[in-house]
């Protein structure tokens, strides 16, 4: 438990370092978290570490009071009952629709076959996006590198998150449409938000002031 008396879910991976920087800046000592990448629970400072997409699960159930995760994760898990308290600004990525360079194969597929095939790890986001834009799409869920799918003819397009666009460029893919911008967010459990209101508000104000 931290001085704040909160259990804090911290994502491993791309958001981890900047999240720990923020926690240091508001007075937690995260040096042990940085130095030990096998340990998962750091009771002294109330930090638990996990993959970013697990953060809403722990926070919704109250196993963590607050958590840091990306807007991309929250959009994909929109049914989670958590409070979204603060846009932290870092971890900026764009959810995009991309295809191979040259004439757009997804347009051609829509014109001649009526349906475009789209590979993604963000199944719900993709379903919602094509519904909103009135296009018929067959969503192919993949677990590994999405960039491979249009190169092999599995699909005509992909929906994926990109930070710099480097991986897309290296695979001869170009961005056709930007769907939304994702940044890191602070979320809270609904019950903790009431019962630990003072601690959560203190943390929120400190983070807001950085």
């Amino acid at each position, binding site marked *: 438990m931290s001085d704040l008396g909160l259990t804090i879910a911290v994502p491993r991976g791309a958001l981890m370092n900047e999240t720990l920087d923020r926690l240091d800046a508001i007075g937690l000592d995260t040096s042990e978290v940085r130095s030990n990448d096998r340990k998962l629970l750091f009771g002294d400072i109330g930090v638990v570490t996990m993959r970013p997409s697990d953060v809403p699960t722990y926070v919704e*159930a109250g196993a963590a009071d607050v958590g840091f995760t990306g807007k991309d994760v929250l959009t994909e898990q929109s049914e989670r009952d958590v*409070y*979204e308290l603060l*846009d932290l600004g870092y971890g900026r990525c764009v959810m995009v629709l991309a295809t191979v360079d040259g004439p757009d194969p997804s347009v051609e597929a829509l014109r001649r076959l009526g349906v475009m095939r789209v590979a993604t790890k963000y199944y719900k986001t993709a379903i919602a996006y094509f519904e909103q834009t009135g296009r018929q799409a067959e969503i192919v869920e993949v677990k590994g590198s999405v960039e491979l799918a249009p190169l092999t003819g599995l699909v005509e397009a992909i929906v994926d998150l990109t930070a710099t666009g480097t991986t897309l460029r290296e695979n001869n893919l170009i961005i056709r449409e930007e769907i939304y911008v994702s940044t890191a*967010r602070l979320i809270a459990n*609904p*019950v*903790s938000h*009431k*019962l630990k209101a003072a601690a959560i508000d203190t943390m929120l104000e400190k983070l807001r002031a950085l």
Partner: protein
Amino acid sequence: MSLPVDTRTTIHPIPSGTRDVLPDEMRELRDITEAVRAVFELDAYGEVWTPALEYETVLGRGGGAPPAYRVFDDHGEVLALRTDMTVPIARLVSTRYPTAQPPLRFCYFAHAYRGVRPHRGQMREFLQAGIELIGAPAPQGTAEALTVLCHALDATGLRGYRIGLGDASLFRTLLRSLKVDDAIGDQLHRTLVQRDFVALEAELARLGLDDADAELLLRVPQIRGGPDVLSAAQGPVADAVAGLRRVYELLAPEVAERVIFDLGLARDLGYYTGAVFEVYDPALGAPLGGGGRYDELLGRFGRPLPAVGFALGIDRLHIALTGEELVT
């Protein structure tokens, strides 16, 4: 290790979001419902049963959660499994008690059905215990409902619970006093119900409101705490919390000490009009139940009477009680 029988012939599925309750668990659930029932009886709330199936048009009139399970009857009418007991009891009051002198007090122990994502403490079929107090206006009626709620929870042996108390009309009152357009107000209210304060801030910035007004609309729904949050309220907020202050003044100390004010409390059912409340316990990450005033619901069934009620999720209460045992 092999199983004693061939499970391919003995295991038969039940629908997602439903479950069996076996005797050990049932005894514990029964202890809870008996304790709650004794409190309701003592406070003169008469227990009722209503059909689990109602006409869809009757449920729709009430404006509660949309039904998840529908069937046709042999005349082609659409029947639906109830999503709560508040709407069926509103129907019952106007149909069976059209001229009875209010106030009327009813309680129930009944299953309701919703199309939720099944998880801990939230099945698609779930048992609720609750009361409806019909014809008792605010603030006295609200104070009585909160008192019965605390007595019922005390009777189960739950120790750490708190009651979050807010007002369903507070945000709208604020929007009106700041002269925000109704359509925009509806959009902002929907965002608040989703508890997305980041989106709320972005929408407020887009509207081009006065800085002070935007700040007020963002800050007020995040205010929660003891009675000092009411005394600190100024201007339009002070007017909006006047109703809550009157309720609070009527509460006995043992009830008042359980209350935390939550100016952002927005329950997602459409029929709430005034005070709303939820029950929180540190042993569970979701509310154990909740309720509020629905002063316009009875009118939709032809017997306009102010009313207030609450429902407790028996499974959630059970989980919280079990969780509290582990703490000591």
